[in-house]
């Protein structure tokens, strides 16, 4: 028991939670934007994976982690645009398009890695960049709290800053209002002269930009290399998180914290000698349990209304 307490009170544990949170939060916010616009981005996993590879390659070629991030973000945005084109212009099914993007990204990144390095598994041979960590000079020197708040990756701060920004965009800008209108009733939105396709295109590009950023964090922050299928289902966990967050940015943050704590427990409690496999189940079991409870409660509420 004291072992557990030590883990919880350790700034290192807190840092782990933030590290785990960062890609999930960015990706979930990306899904949120697409979901509210009525074009659920099921291709998030593929966008993250593509962003992760492109970031590593471009940072290795240019020697700049920031240029790597920029390239990852552009790649994600292009994938979002491709998804919008397939769905809205060509009339493809949204779900199938998302799955297709994921499958294409999985093998496409392996192929890209092979062409760039001659290796199909890892990019270890490349000298790729890492996004810097930031020391908050004054805050960092505060006793007790300092070690908790300072010294994290720039994208971690970026992810946390994205929460109020996305919230503000959805609630207070014309673009956010139109996204919310289009997602609920595209026909009604069209009668006031809104172009539904344009709003959905913009929403998916933005969603892809965030996906590329989440991927870049994985390969240039979380670790410093690209590995085959390194997203390991985070794009799908982000989907579960977005649903748990009930389509709001702050709800998504709360859900991300819960999942990240569960995942951190899974990592750190392996040191306590509990069965590894049992711990690794936690991040997957938690969303299932929470979503089951919420769905059941929603049903009960609707039934009570009748």
């Amino acid at each position, binding site marked *: 028991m004291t072992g557990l307490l030590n883990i919880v009170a350790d700034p290192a544990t807190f840092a782990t939670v933030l590290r785990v949170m960062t890609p999930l939060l960015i990706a979930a916010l990306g899904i949120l934007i697409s979901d509210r616009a009525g074009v659920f981005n099921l291709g998030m996993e593929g966008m993250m994976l593509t962003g992760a590879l492109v970031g590593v390659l471009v940072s290795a070629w240019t020697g700049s982690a920031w240029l790597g991030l920029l390239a990852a973000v552009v790649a994600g945005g292009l994938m979002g645009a491709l998804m919008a084109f397939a769905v809205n212009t060509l009339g493809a099914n949204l779900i199938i398009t998302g799955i297709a993007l994921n499958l294409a990204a999985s093998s496409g990144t392996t192929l890209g890695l092979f062409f760039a390095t001659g290796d199909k598994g890892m990019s270890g041979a490349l000298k790729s960049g890492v996004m810097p960590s930031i020391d908050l000079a004054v805050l960092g020197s505060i006793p007790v709290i300092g070690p908790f708040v300072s010294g994290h990756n720039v994208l971690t701060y970026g992810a946390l800053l994205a929460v109020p920004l996305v919230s503000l965009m959805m609630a207070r800008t014309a673009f956010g*209002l139109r996204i919310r209108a289009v997602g*609920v009733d595209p026909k*009604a*939105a069209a009668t*006031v002269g809104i172009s539904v396709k344009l709003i959905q295109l913009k929403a998916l590009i933005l969603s892809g930009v965030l996906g590329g950023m989440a991927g870049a964090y994985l390969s240039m922050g979380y670790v410093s290399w690209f590995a085959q299928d390194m997203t390991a289902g985070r794009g799908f966990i982000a989907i579960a998180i977005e649903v748990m967050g009930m389509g709001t940015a702050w709800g998504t943050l709360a859900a991300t914290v819960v999942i990240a704590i569960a995942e951190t427990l899974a990592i750190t409690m392996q040191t306590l000698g509990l069965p590894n496999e049992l711990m690794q189940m936690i991040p997957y079991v938690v969303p299932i349990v929470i979503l089951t409870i919420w769905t059941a409660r929603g049903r009960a509420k609707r039934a009570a209304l009748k």
Partner: protein
Amino acid sequence: MTDRRDDGERAAGPAPVVAFDHISKTYANGTVALRDVSFSIPARTIHAICGENGAGKSTLMKILFGLEGPTAGQVLLDGQPVSTATRDFAGRHGIGMVHQHFSLIPTLSVTENIILGHEPKKGVLIDRAAARAKVEALSQRYGLAVDPDAITGRLPVAAQQKVEILKALSRDTRVLILDEPTAVLSPPEINELFSRLRDLRDHGITILFISHKLNEVRSLAESVTVLRAGQVAGAARLADVPDNMIMQMVMGRPVEITRREPRQVTGEPLLVMSGVSLASRDPADRLRDIDLVIHPGEIVGVAGVDGSGQRGLVSLVTGAARPGAGSISFDGEDMAAASTERWRARGMAHLPSDRFTQGGVPALTLIENAIAGTDGDRRFQRGPFLRGGAISEAVAGMVEDYSVRALSIGERLDSLSGGNVQKLIAARELATEPRFLIADQPTRGIDVAAAAFIHKRIVDAAERGAAVLLVTADLDELLRLSDRVVVMFGGQITAVLANEAHLTPERLGPFMLGLEDMP
């Protein structure tokens, strides 16, 4: 019929706000929705547009609202020809529309709904203070009180309609179209709406009021244009014409009707509904206090303008809905909570109004459509396997009996004409020798020969002792087949009439339009 074209021109002075000039509209599938429609609407008036469903009212309003373009002819605003069907046409020309099914987003606030598409901005953000002020100003100017911060979907329907009107007025609107706005309102709410609309007219807004309820048209509008079958059937100032003349324009000329030999029905009724009500999200499906009996061998025809509750009535006796109150019994058995399966097991057969979404599956073959619903039938099934030979033989028999014209029974259903599809569905439904037949618009949109054939089969079923519920918008068909006629209006039965020689469409009209009520 009247000197309608001269109406606008005779009034000297400014050009009429809206003028339709020889508008025709033919859809890609060949349906002619409008044929050479010309009339004009003077400024600052309330003008009603009347007509039955399918008369072309909605198409004409879609053209004026800019959602569709005409095939021929043009729309003139203030005497100037304009090209419709361009992006944001209505917004740019100050035309607002209150849709029958509101175009509001339920999850947004009242203010958000009203500013949507033309949001006032301060930097990158929406200027919420300006938006709120705008809504309050609109609300005050036109006397339409709403809470700007309420979530729209949580408001009662009458309040949502106010929001819809404010939204339609929010962009310097001078022409306001209202499509059947009273369908969702109670009588006091209707009075309130009408006095608000008169205020709007006094503020200089020209109002187009689309309705099929003559009493409402008379109490609100100054002039009326009647459309029938895509053409202008007449136009008049309401002060100048009596009700029955407008009705004549709406319904068209009476047709010679050959009635079926009257039958004496005896014995106990088969279907008994008493005090039945039905709650529904769609007001057109709601029913109130329905009493209806049908005897074996009797054809009861249901008349009424579309959306008067017919769909709700059919859903109750086919097991698609459960009544909120009242009782339904069939052959003495309580069927209020019966499923479709149970209704069918008791001998119910159903010719649905929409033959391609409810009657059959367009992409399946004639064979598959003809045996739909027979699963478990030993003739067609052995263990889990279908008996192809026996099925083909039975379906070929049906196709021959009902003279369905098809190249082969292996064809897709949607390769057939409407009349042949309906004959196949009739063959399937009547093959079961039903005790209770529901024929919902059985001959809508099919050719005369096929219609006559289906009429004969319906009469045959009744003569074999089936109780028949015939729902139809075709009054000719109604009077041809029915032994008894019930008229529905606003979810209630407003009249029950024996189908005798003096019963004419003119006699039914006032009940169908809610002008008269039989206690």
